[in-house]
């Protein structure tokens, strides 16, 4: 069972602030999500290596450089930028 403490811990790790009145709802939601995911554990399957069910290995890239993107394109989605850097403003 997911508790209020679990939710607060996960929120803290994700740097989210959770208001006290939201706690009950989020705890309930998380329990339901985990219960849903448990249906996978309940299913019977012959595959033991769930990590790599497609059996692929060693998909590599050769160490050959290609030109990078233009800086203005890289910064296009940035909320703000300064002198070619991404800018993270101090929170007030």
């Amino acid at each position: 069972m997911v508790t209020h403490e679990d939710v607060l811990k996960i929120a803290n790790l994700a740097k989210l602030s959770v208001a006290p009145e939201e706690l009950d709802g989020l705890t309930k939601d998380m329990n339901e999500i985990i219960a849903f995911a448990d249906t996978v554990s309940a299913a019977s399957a012959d595959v033991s290596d769930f990590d790599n069910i497609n059996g692929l290995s060693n998909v590599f890239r050769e160490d050959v450089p290609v030109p990078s993107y233009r800086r203005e394109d890289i910064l296009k989605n940035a909320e703000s930028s300064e002198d070619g850097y991404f800018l993270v403003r101090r929170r007030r």
Partner: protein
Amino acid sequence: MNYELVCGLETHVELATKTKIFCSCTTEFGAEPNTHCCPVCIGLPGTLPKLNKAVVEYAVTAGLATHCEINPDAKMDRKNYVYPDLPKAYQISEYDQPLCRNGYVELASGKKIRLTRIHIEEDAGKLVHERGNTLIDYNRGGVPLIEIVSEPDIRSIGEAAEYVEQLQAIMRYIGVSDCKMQEGSLRCDVNVSVRPQGSDRLGTRTEIKNMNSFSHMTKAIQYEMDRQIDLLESGEDVVQETRRYNEETGCTEGMRGKEDANDYRYFRDPDLVAIRVTDDMVAALKAKMPEGPQKRLARFQTEYGLPEADARLLIDRRRIADYFEAAAKGTKNPRTVANCILGPIFSRLDSDAAKDEFRVSVSPENLNALVGLLDAGKIRKNLVKSTLEKMLDTGKPAAAFLSEKDLAGVNPDDLRKICEQAAADNPNAVKDYRGGKEKALKAVLGAVMKMTRGRANPQEAEKILTQIMKA
């Protein structure tokens, strides 16, 4: 009470690949911010990482060079944490199946510092803090790293420094990294604890993050040891925490409290498939590996008869060791070659960076030719150094400075005449010699060498002078 240090290191080494670990952006150092970036290394949604083959090869080579077992079945995991230097909010690393395990690095004393593991991971971007804001450059984001984790086998600050030096030498030798601490391509996190001398229990440890120079590292360990001993002596406990070394104060400071100790929630990265290192791959990498610095050190002493201290200075950098071997090829005087490098050549390379680069105007072939003249008895030892200086000044071969006359030496009749002249010029020395002061002969011999500009054979000249001055 006497305390001893218990120390283990996590060393991050940037690999010398041309491209990043999961995309084809260049890893070149020192570019304008955010010009070596693409959607993969700035973590845009929907992008797919693809592992650089050279990263696996370098990491396995590093493992082989440090006596590790190579894991045939490695994989990559996500290490989750939220900080702006990681645009994805996770770092791709290896958690429970690293590429290399159970190795060691041997110190000069013969003591082995055990390695727990070596794994591959991506470097984070660089943060610049300015006026409370943070500027981010992701050029370094996605540059491949290996993290080399040692067991807590280190018992002194000297051992810690030697361990890092050894790692640096090994990694440079096998060519997996340039290991420049000043450019951040080698950085250490140091785990420090203390315990009463003779105890076999481990004390509570603290971790000092991101040491990027030897002097900071040794000062930080010393400070942290003293701080922990003070705490224990006054009956307090050491708190397990991460600390930062403050270069200005020379102190270590706590970075975060115990309450938000990290919980990285590792899980397998579903975007990346298994890494299977086959015996064939390992054999091929082994075959490509150059001789390690330890072996070379021993060989330089036996094969070339170099004193250990000289051999150490030469093997420290592979480029210099290679230069020495090329210059010493086939010579009867390898020690003269070593002295040429450690003397005149080193005196022109006054910084570590210059020695790393080792740009020398004299090719190893030209130095080999110069020493060849000594081997053949065509010039004397004292002429080697002065000729080499001229060669270094101009980049020209020895033949440009040694005339036919120089190379021919001095014929016996001329030498006798010159010796007679020298004795006549130094009547006091001759008188002293006849009075029993044998050393006075050296002054006259010096005059002979000066008159022949070093071309005379000193043994011959001494013989002739003894005859003349005794008479």
